[in-house]
């Protein structure tokens, strides 16, 4: 009987977030794990190509701008904080707060993309290209794959925001907000690793 009661209100925040009724969340986690394997493959390819071609590998910071990218990392971390604030707001039933924090998260993601576009433009003008060097190939593929994730995330957040503006989320129904949060934090997590491995090391 207890189980049946739980099935009637799968989104009830009073429930202890059991694994079985919350398929959306566990499916997002499984997707993120497969995505993590893609990024692991790209990062390992970067490491293997770099370590087996030390003679033609530049010091990354001689080409890339570390301070600007550190700022970009900071912006992405801030957007993760506004994302958790959005989830916390709707868990308390604060729809206005949800919309504000979701919009702030989108602004953070869009700013990240803008700075990355500026950086890419600068690097391309300096002659870095996918076909020109091993460093350029691995750099553009890695940061481009991550940038596509940020772009998808901003669009995904926009969908959730428009649903929130139509009054879809309440104190009893915020599962989708938490799931978009998982995706967004994952994109932040990956950038932390990419920043360290590609820009700093």
């Amino acid at each position, binding site marked *: 009987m207890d189980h049946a009661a739980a099935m009637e209100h799968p989104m009830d925040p009073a429930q*202890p977030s059991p694994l079985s009724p919350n398929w959306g969340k566990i499916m997002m986690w499984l997707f993120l794990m497969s995505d993590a394997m893609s990024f692991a493959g790209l990062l390992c390819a970067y490491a293997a190509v770099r370590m087996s071609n030390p003679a033609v590998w530049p010091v990354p910071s001689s080409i890339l701008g570390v301070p600007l990218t550190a700022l970009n990392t900071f912006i992405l971390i801030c957007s993760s904080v506004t994302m958790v604030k959005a989830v916390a707001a709707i868990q308390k039933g604060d729809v206005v707060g949800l919309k504000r924090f979701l919009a702030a998260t989108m602004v953070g993601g869009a700013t990240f993309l803008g700075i990355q576009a500026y950086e890419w433009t600068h690097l391309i003008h300096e002659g870095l290209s996918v076909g020109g060097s091993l460093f350029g190939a691995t750099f553009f593929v890695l940061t481009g794959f991550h940038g596509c994730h940020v772009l998808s995330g901003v669009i995904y957040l926009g969908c959730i925001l428009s649903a929130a503006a139509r009054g879809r989320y309440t104190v009893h129904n915020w599962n989708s907000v938490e799931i978009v949060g998982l995706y967004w934090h994952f994109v*932040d997590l990956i950038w932390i690793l990419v920043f360290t491995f590609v820009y700093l090391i």
Partner: protein
Amino acid sequence: MSAAEHKEPKYLHVFWALLVLTLAEVGVFYLHLPTALMIICLVVMALVKAGLVAAYFMHLALEKRTLALIVVSPLVLSAIIIIGLTPDSVFSYPRKPPEHWVLPGEEEPASEPSVPGPEELAPPAQPPQQAPPADGGPA
């Protein structure tokens, strides 16, 4: 377990930790430490940051333990595969191809063996791989 969702973690504390670690990473980068030490410091700090994001922002530490097992076990397996394959894929990567390989744009050395004469045709039972090493010198 318990009503995990309502034990809201101190998100701002996590944020400050991430900020301090990011600044520490950039600081270590500008310190120009010995390469190995710098790489170890940076990797450890990056993994701590990633762990903080997963544990608190993604609520992995507050969910049922089963979810954490589902998430972490494939990462452990992939780390084992990566570490196991590193010696072959990175450190002993062949700098030069073996001499008997024909690379694109090079002459086919297989055309030469016809020159030595018909007496070479007597033992055809040998596998064809035997021919190129005899010719490897001039190539």
